[in-house]
């Protein structure tokens, strides 16, 4: 049966995770990365209220750790990653410093974006990570980065991560069209978590066949169970490898689920958009739990190793909070400089200074034609 949100639960609890796909060492690293991401998100969620020191919208990604964890093991710093508003996983995937993520959310000057952007607009240019809140905006920009790499024959690839909600946008299909037409080195990663905020995909789209649709534009695609971390890793690895060999573009649709609310720590269940039974299914089939069971069963992990990992992560998270809370708030002395660079070293090198007020106004305007 083809995977989709409507078929996943019919199959029953997922039993197919196979750490050997990735190999033991990678599987353990995947587990560790997912656990790190999970714990930092939980810590942020739990600290959010009543402290109220994080004063920005945060779209947590609890339950959606498999894709970011896999990407974190597959991308180089030089690759570009453009993320949607649910950004922490992708920020993490690019290996950008977590203390700067925390400081950003706390609005401190040591934040990745100096406290100017917050969780949903954070970027870390030296890690080649960018995000933004407007759906599919980052997808379009990713297309341009892929074009730049292709034109300049650079070895990097461009990756963009987003949810199925972004595929409602016309901008998304413009990007798919151009990527397919130009065979761009661009990887689209759809984390299909079924809901755009509280709206079911099938309320907004004729069907959930995103893959079939992008294939028609010349973008090859794969749909997978997105909580099977070794499978996610293997699939992304294959596609990234093909992209690096000028065999792009590709789209991977990973079916997954956010266990938290759309935004913030508050429960959004009042909107009645998902059932308790559905949430329980996904809790049982969360990517960390699925992989951990197999790793423990095969002896690659045990309680002691997990406890050690938890302790290391707890310390890392505590350090991030300390860093954020002890950092100063930003000050702005020049609003204009914040918005305009003003320097132009390239123009200084290439262009002469000239000025001329000479102008003959006794000329008629151009007579236009139909075209």
């Amino acid at each position, binding site marked *: 049966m083809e995977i989709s949100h409507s078929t996943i639960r019919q199959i029953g609890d997922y039993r197919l995770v196979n750490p050997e796909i990735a190999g033991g060492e990678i599987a353990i690293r995947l587990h560790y990365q997912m656990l790190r991401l999970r714990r930092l998100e939980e810590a942020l969620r739990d600290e959010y209220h009543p402290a109220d020191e994080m004063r920005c919208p945060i779209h947590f990604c609890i339950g959606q750790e498999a894709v970011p964890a896999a990407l974190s093991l597959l991308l180089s710093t030089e690759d*570009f990653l453009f993320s949607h508003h649910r950004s922490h996983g992708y920020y993490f995937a690019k290996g950008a410093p977590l203390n700067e993520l925390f400081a950003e959310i706390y609005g401190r000057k040591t934040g*990745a*974006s100096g*406290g*100017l*952007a917050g969780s949903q*607009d954070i*970027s870390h*240019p030296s890690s080649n990570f960018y995000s*933004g809140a407007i759906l599919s*905006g980052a997808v*379009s*920009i990713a*297309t*341009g*980065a*892929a*074009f*730049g*790499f292709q*034109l*300049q024959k*650079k070895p*990097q690839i*461009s990756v963009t991560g987003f949810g199925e909600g972004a595929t409602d946008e*016309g*901008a998304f299909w*413009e*990007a798919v*069209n*151009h990527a397919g037409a130009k065979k761009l080195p661009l990887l689209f990663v759809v984390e299909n978590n079924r809901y755009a905020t509280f709206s079911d995909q099938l309320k907004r789209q004729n069907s959930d066949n995103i893959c079939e649709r992008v294939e028609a534009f010349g973008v090859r695609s794969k749909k997978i169970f997105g909580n099977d971390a070794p499978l996610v890793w293997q699939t992304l690895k294959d596609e990234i490898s093909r992209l690096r060999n000028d065999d792009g573009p590709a789209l991977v649709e990973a079916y997954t689920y956010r266990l938290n609310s759309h935004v913030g720590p508050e429960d959004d269940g009042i909107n009645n958009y998902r059932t308790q039974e559905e949430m329980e299914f996904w809790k049982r089939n969360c990517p960390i739990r699925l992989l951990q069971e197999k790793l423990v069963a095969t002896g690659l992990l045990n309680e002691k190793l997990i406890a050690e990992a938890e302790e290391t992560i707890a310390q890392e998270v505590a350090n991030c909070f300390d860093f954020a809370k002890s950092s100063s708030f930003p000050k702005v002395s020049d*609003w204009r*400089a*914040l*918005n*305009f*660079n*003003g320097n*132009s*070293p*390239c*123009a200084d090198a*290439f*262009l*002469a200074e000239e*000025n*001329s*007020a*000479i*102008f*003959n*106004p*006794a*000329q*008629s*305007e*151009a*007579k*236009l*034609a139909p075209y």
Partner: protein
Amino acid sequence: MAREISYAEAIREATDQAMALSNDVVVLGQLVDTPAGIFGTTTGLAGKYGLERVQDYPVSENLMTAAALGSSLTGLRPIICHQRLDFMLYSLDAITNWLALWRFKSNEKSSARVTIRAIVGKGWGQGPQHSKSLHSWFAHLPGLRVAMPATAFDAKGLLLESVFSEDPAIIIEGRGLFSMREHVPEHPYRVRFGQALVRKEGFDVTVVAIGVMVPPAMRAAAILDKEGISVEVVDPRTLNPLDRETIVKSTTKTSRLVVADPGWHSFGAATEIITTVTESMGTQLLCNPQRVTYPDSHTPMSMALEKEYYPNEQEIILAIRRALE
């Protein structure tokens, strides 16, 4: 005699020179690779630099703007071309939510080196979807530079300056100007943003004229000169940044202000310029500031109505006379 070329040829020459100076410069737009070449401004460039660097783009304006931004992050300096500004409006998200705030959002760490060329039709029944300028919309945005070159000289210098600077810019080109010829130096040069030009010195009244309003303002000044009315014509050349100092300095000298703005009357560039002057001079002005603008109406197609809709030197002369009353 100094070499003269047209406004369109000046844009083409600037683009050609930019592409020769740096392999990072690319031109994207619908039909940029055709012989017609965006009214002659890109003609021949595809043959010279190849179809990758002079790239016909899908009819996806929003994508083009966003992709230009993405490509600039990889080191490119794209020039994107819109034959008609109106079509560009699909890219308001890319411009407003991404391009203009890219530097801000990255805490000054990342630059979006994108030049947008947008052409504004006028006449021959271009009508309401081929003739909007909207420069005041764009000038309102932090983070986006806005140029309104009125002459071939400025068209070349501002385009080169924009391409080789670190901030994004939109250059709004009045198509009525494309045939006008002027002395343009052959070598690559820059006209800096934020530097207004006093095109004609005078003592009785300051006329600040923007873009396609510069030629009629100059003609009005020449006509009134013969009557002994001395008009100073200031061309701001760019609206963001706006050279407020030069405008205020001129008006301080003349104490009278007329603004000729090729946009709608309300909430426009003229409003901003008059406000700037009155904030500085207040009751020292000897007249109420005058605006010469388009009516608060969309552009009509009929040639009979076009004549009524677009102000010319006669309307500017009337405004100057009102200022001198």
